[in-house]
């Protein structure tokens, strides 16, 4: 078996510690090791990986393998950043006793993921501190959409608007402020219930999954190439990142290596996506503290990036740019010039915007010490991506598990520890400069050759994990292939799902009028969460 040398010590240690209790140890890729463990061993293995190997549980999901193996499988995906690889525990759940034991008390980061499994697979959660519904709203009948015996096109009775019973917060002067699902701005739907005493927020409860569209189930009904287009629609602002993560998973399953030029162009797409989102968000944060001029300048810059996207790939939001085996756009010399011109123009323009914001003491007053996410809270919740880096979590898959062309370019990962809105803005600001530098480096060493590897039918019964550091944070797509160029399962993990609970912590003690700017500073995707 071909296990990456850096992962070997952790795998060997687990085997020693739980001698002979693994049903199988498989390494379909050197940095992706599967341990088939009995259910009673999960907690012990997780604790071991967490404490001894500094592993992070980055995705927890179920798979209905009853047709072939007479069991549900639970997958616990651990990233070992220092070892640049993944250890994945697979534990069976018997259909006769469809239940599993919660890890939430020990690993808070899995709270929502466990409840989602309970909702979508009908596996009862034991020992969870708050085992209420999460993915399916209260009025849903007792259906479990991701079970194989549930049909995608099932017609359910229409939504009746059953009121969700939130936790009650009581006390003298305490009152509740419900907001949503339809919000005041041009944003996605979700419900927030604030419990406040005077102005400061005592408690915030989130109710999401309003945009649940059956995406993971739909993946199982589409030919694999169509899945690339569906992946683009998981979170529109991260369309290229999601599509690339999906392609990465499929390519790993099939043993396809995208050519060098394709890997370079993927990096171009990912950094362009980061640029337009970061610039837009910096502007939106300014608008939320009434500095609209800065927002207008940011929208001017963002528009220039979107138009460059259109010129380079045919789509302002990079739709249709990804494909299995590589990409669907090429940079001829004219387009390379166009990109270089954009970067040369953008850098001083963005510096001017940064200066404008820096000079505005009123803006800084509103952003500093607002919406603080403490590093220890961020660690407990497993916060990822730019929000994590603003709270001291020094992780970035581009550096830690290089994909696309990131092993060929030099860049720094900005990290702050204060965890306030100002630092989430600062991470974006620094990453914009890094993105510009990365794009220059890619242009300077753009490999020649094809932009995609040929891809035939994908072999069945393979599993693979694809990953990408999107602008918001790490994106994982895990697939199990089926006969006929189809998927038996596609698990999508958007960074938003991981980061939403952090918003409830960051807002505590802040006033409701600051909620929009705190929320915007995270800018989490509802659609990416709800799928």
């Amino acid at each position, binding site marked *: 078996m071909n296990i990456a040398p850096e992962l070997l010590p952790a795998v060997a240690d687990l085997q020693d510690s739980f001698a002979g209790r693994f049903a199988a140890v498989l390494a379909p890729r050197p940095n992706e090791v599967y341990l088939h463990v009995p259910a009673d061993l999960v907690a012990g293995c997780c604790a071991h990986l967490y404490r001894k190997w500094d592993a992070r549980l980055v995705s927890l999901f179920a798979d209905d393998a009853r047709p072939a193996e007479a069991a549900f499988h639970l997958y616990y995906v651990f990233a070992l950043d220092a070892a640049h690889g993944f250890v994945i525990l697979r534990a069976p759940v018997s259909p006769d006793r469809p239940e599993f034991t919660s890890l939430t008390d020990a690993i808070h980061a899995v709270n929502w993921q466990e409840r989602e499994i309970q909702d979508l697979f009908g596996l009862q959660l034991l020992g969870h501190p708050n085992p209420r519904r999460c993915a399916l709203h209260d009025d849903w009948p007792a259906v479990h959409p991701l079970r194989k015996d549930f049909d995608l096109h099932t017609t359910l009775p229409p939504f009746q608007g059953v009121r969700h019973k939130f936790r009650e917060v009581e006390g003298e002067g305490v009152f509740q402020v419900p907001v949503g699902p339809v919000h005041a701005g041009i944003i996605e*739907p979700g419900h927030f219930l604030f419990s406040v005493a005077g102005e400061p927020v005592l408690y915030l409860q989130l109710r999401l999954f*309003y*945009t649940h*569209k*059956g995406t993971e189930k739909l993946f199982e009904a589409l030919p694999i190439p*169509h899945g690339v287009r569906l992946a683009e*629609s998981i979170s529109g602002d991260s369309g290229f990142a999601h599509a690339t993560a999906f392609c990465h998973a499929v390519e790993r399953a099939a043993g396809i290596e995208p050519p060098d030029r394709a890997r370079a162009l993927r990096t171009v797409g990912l950094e362009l996506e980061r640029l337009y989102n970061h610039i837009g968000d910096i502007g939106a944060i300014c608008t939320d503290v009434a500095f609209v001029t800065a927002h207008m300048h940011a*929208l001017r810059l963002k528009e220039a990036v979107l138009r460059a996207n259109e010129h380079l790939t045919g789509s*302002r*939001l990079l739709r249709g740019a990804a494909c299995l085996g590589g990409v669907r756009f090429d940079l001829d010399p004219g387009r390379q010039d166009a990109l270089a011109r954009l970067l040369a123009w953008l850098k001083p323009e963005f510096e001017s915007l940064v200066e404008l914001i820096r000079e505005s003491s009123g803006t800084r007053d509103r952003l500093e010490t607002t919406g603080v996410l403490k590093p220890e809270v961020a660690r407990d919740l497993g916060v990822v991506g730019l929000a994590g880096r603003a709270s001291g979590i020094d992780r970035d898959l581009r550096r830690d598990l290089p994909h696309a062309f990131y092993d060929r370019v030099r860049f720094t990962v900005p990290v702050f520890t204060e965890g306030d809105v100002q630092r989430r803005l600062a991470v974006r600001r620094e990453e914009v400069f890094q993105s510009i530098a990365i794009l220059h480096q890619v242009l300077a060493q753009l490999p020649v050759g094809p932009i995609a590897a040929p891809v035939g039918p994908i072999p069945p019964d393979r599993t693979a994990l694809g990953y990408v550091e999107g602008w918001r944070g790490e994106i994982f797509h895990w697939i199990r292939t089926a006969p006929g160029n189809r998927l038996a399962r596609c698990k999508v993990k958007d960074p938003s799902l991981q980061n939403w609970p952090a918003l409830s912590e960051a807002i505590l003690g802040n006033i409701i009028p600051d909620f929009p700017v705190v929320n915007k500073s995270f800018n989490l995707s509802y659609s990416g969460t709800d799928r």
Partner: protein
Amino acid sequence: MFNILSESLRTGVVTSGYPATPPDVSPAARGRPVFDWAAWRDARPAAAICPTGAIACAEGAGRRTVRFDLGRCIFCGLCAETDPAIRMTNVCECAVAHRADLVTTAEYRLRADGTQEALAAGPTGPAAPEPLTGVGRELQARVTAVLGRSLHVRQVDAGSCNGCEMEIGGLNGPVYDAERFGIHFVASPRHADLLLVTGPVTRNMELAVRKTYDAMPAPRLVVAVGACGCSGGIFGRNYATCGGVDAVLPVDVHIPGCPPNPYALLHGLLLAVGRLPRAG
């Protein structure tokens, strides 16, 4: 403060010249596909590669009916790569009032090998798209006449992936600046003349969408945005979605695209205002 002013003076006016100038869209942009219906020899590969079912074939008795639904099209261009009878254009202004006007159908006689011999009927479908010039001026005139220089828009995401929100947000920026037409995005449906709805309507949002519509004063308009808003898009109808916006609300205008760009959105808003009963 001085720097704020000098920055604004330095950058000057960046607002698009539209409507005096046509939409400033790259020639490389993928917009509405066009079909050489008469020369089309085999629609099956294009139908197979289309991820949303926008191109569909039905066969029977030596005939093939080919249907193209612009309301489902996500402008990915995969069909045009496969089939010389299909070409992508950069035309973005595709909005129509009636859902049926997004659909083109043609019937072919078939050869023994299953390829298309000749057109037997059609193509029947929408007339030429709305003219591209003068849209903004006309919009301004209609908004002035009908609503007294203001069109208040309430946007509702009924289940979108947020791609449409990204482009709608661009309407409020300095480049497209919808406010120059009197188009103003408002916070409450009670202040709104027009409901701009994105996404396939999810089961979880259906009631909220209905309630938002019910909260609007009459006369009111509904505009469905994007492939998902027009038809359900790649999601279609399933256990969690009801399909396009017209499954839940009466829709006055459909704006295709994935997502439609800001010019396409402005074009759709013009059509919608044209459908309001004239005051007085």
